[in-house]
């Protein structure tokens, strides 16, 4: 009887939680990231942020569902929360960006709508992470820096799937601290990446360091 009870409790625990509520917070050195504000990076570059958008998604098994991908947009607070299903082991597994199947499937609804400005028509792939702004370090037109990081074909795919393990609480906070995102980025040297390739892969690796799961509560 006691054993049965144990299994009942276990079963109850296993099925009690199927989803995690993700919350994304944009910061700079721990403080809330502000528009029209100059920040100085570790490398000494002054930056003002205009656009920060990225896809977060659940890795697809065999087919793509529009609900399983979410576009987080710094300028739209309503996109900063996303409810994501846990896998069968109660693990939180998410992808920063979109795994290849999202780029080749026919599903183009919701946040996967190619008209949302996160899509390259000429090579049919979503931009996984877009960061744009202004910096005197960027020797470009109007001192704009533009990182459009994408690519889904090997060996230049930039999506990063992370298994955060079992989650026992439903609220999960992920902070994106731009200080950390730009910790290894030299804006003087690299300020425009608009196509997939080695440079995009390298930059994504640097920037993704700034995406940190703070924990579940």
């Amino acid at each position, binding site marked *: 009887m006691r054993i049965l009870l144990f299994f009942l409790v276990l079963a109850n625990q296993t099925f009690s939680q199927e989803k995690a509520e993700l919350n994304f917070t944009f910061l700079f050195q721990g403080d809330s990231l502000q528009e029209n504000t100059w920040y100085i990076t570790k490398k000494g570059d002054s930056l003002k942020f205009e656009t920060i958008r990225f896809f977060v998604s659940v890795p697809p098994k065999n087919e793509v569902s529009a609900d399983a991908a979410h576009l987080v947009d710094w300028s739209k607070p309503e996109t900063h929360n996303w409810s994501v299903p846990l896998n069968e082991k109660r693990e939180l597994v998410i992808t920063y960006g979109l795994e290849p199947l999202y780029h080749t499937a*026919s599903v183009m609804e919701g946040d996967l709508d*190619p008209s949302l400005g996160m899509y390259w028509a000429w090579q049919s792939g979503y931009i996984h992470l877009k960061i744009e702004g202004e910096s005197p370090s960027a020797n470009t037109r109007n001192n704009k820096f533009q990182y459009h990081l994408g690519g889904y*074909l090997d060996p230049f795919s930039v999506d990063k799937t992370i298994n955060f393990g079992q989650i026992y609480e439903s609220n999960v906070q992920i902070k994106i601290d731009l200080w950390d995102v730009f910790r290894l980025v030299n804006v003087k040297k690299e300020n425009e990446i608009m196509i997939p390739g080695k440079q995009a892969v390298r930059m994504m690796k640097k920037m993704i360091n700034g995406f940190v799961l703070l924990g579940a509560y």
Partner: protein
Amino acid sequence: MKSLFVIFLILSTSLIWKNSGDKIFSITWPEKTYDYSVNPRSDSKIQLGRALFYDPILSKDNSISCSSCHLQATGFTHVDHDLSHGIDGRIGTRNSMALMNLAWSTSFMWDGGVPALDRQTIAPITDHNEMDEDLKKVLKKLNKLPRYRKAFLEAFGAEEATTQNLLFAISQFELELISNNSKYDKYLRGEAQFNEQEQNGLQLFRNNCASCHTEPLFTSHKFENNGLPLDPTLMDYGRKKITNLAEDAQKFKVPTLRNIKHTYPYMHDGRFSKLREVLDHYTDNIERSSTLSPQLKKAIKLSSNEKADIIAFLFTLTDDDFLFNPKFGYPREFFSKE
């Protein structure tokens, strides 16, 4: 043991004879690659897609439609233009591809940059040198017109056009563009005869060309460098732009040869206007490089008469039922409703 060897020899010779002789060997069409489960076929979608295909509303200044560069009577390509042009007379960098049997295609565009038919139309709509339009603006324009609201409702159960439904409808029309009733097809089915020249041409074709231009679709769907020198005014490295891999430099998609009589000029940049020039390229002007197609490493040798025979065979790939099928033409009725 010896007798076994003799039997083997007889067997293998007869097999070779069967394949290389003038016998027809039956060719079965492969399964379609398009996944209809996401976008099930329906007549209302096909008709909506047909209207959209012929409507210049898709372009920024409402001047260019899909059919501007993909004309039915010429195999849905832009005849007599080496490079196609878009709005404001802007010139693109490649020859428009012929549209047919797309349900069997595994990738789209000369460089295969588009992996799914449903995503292909985004490229010409948004390309600066083609229609140069924003997808959202296209939807806005369509949603203002009662005839489209009605057509979207019939096709998708919702009046409001969405990006996905717009693309699904165009796909549905394009998937209907099947060319399988040429003299060659009839010959394979035993409904037509080849003359001696056509038959010889078929044989030469099978021996020299068919490993890339695989029957019955006349394409392997692969990307190959066919030994064309790089055009310094275009510097088009083809597939390499998509994959960023040096091994893909100057590789382009193997195009179908169906209806080739009408789809000139030829090659990704339309550099040849006559089939004879194409064959002369393959026999005399292959540029050797590390990415050259393995099939072209050994020189192709064809006499002038043999080339004429191959061309005679290629002309049997013309499918008038396809080129003049009224179902694929301009939908006068749809546009005359208002």
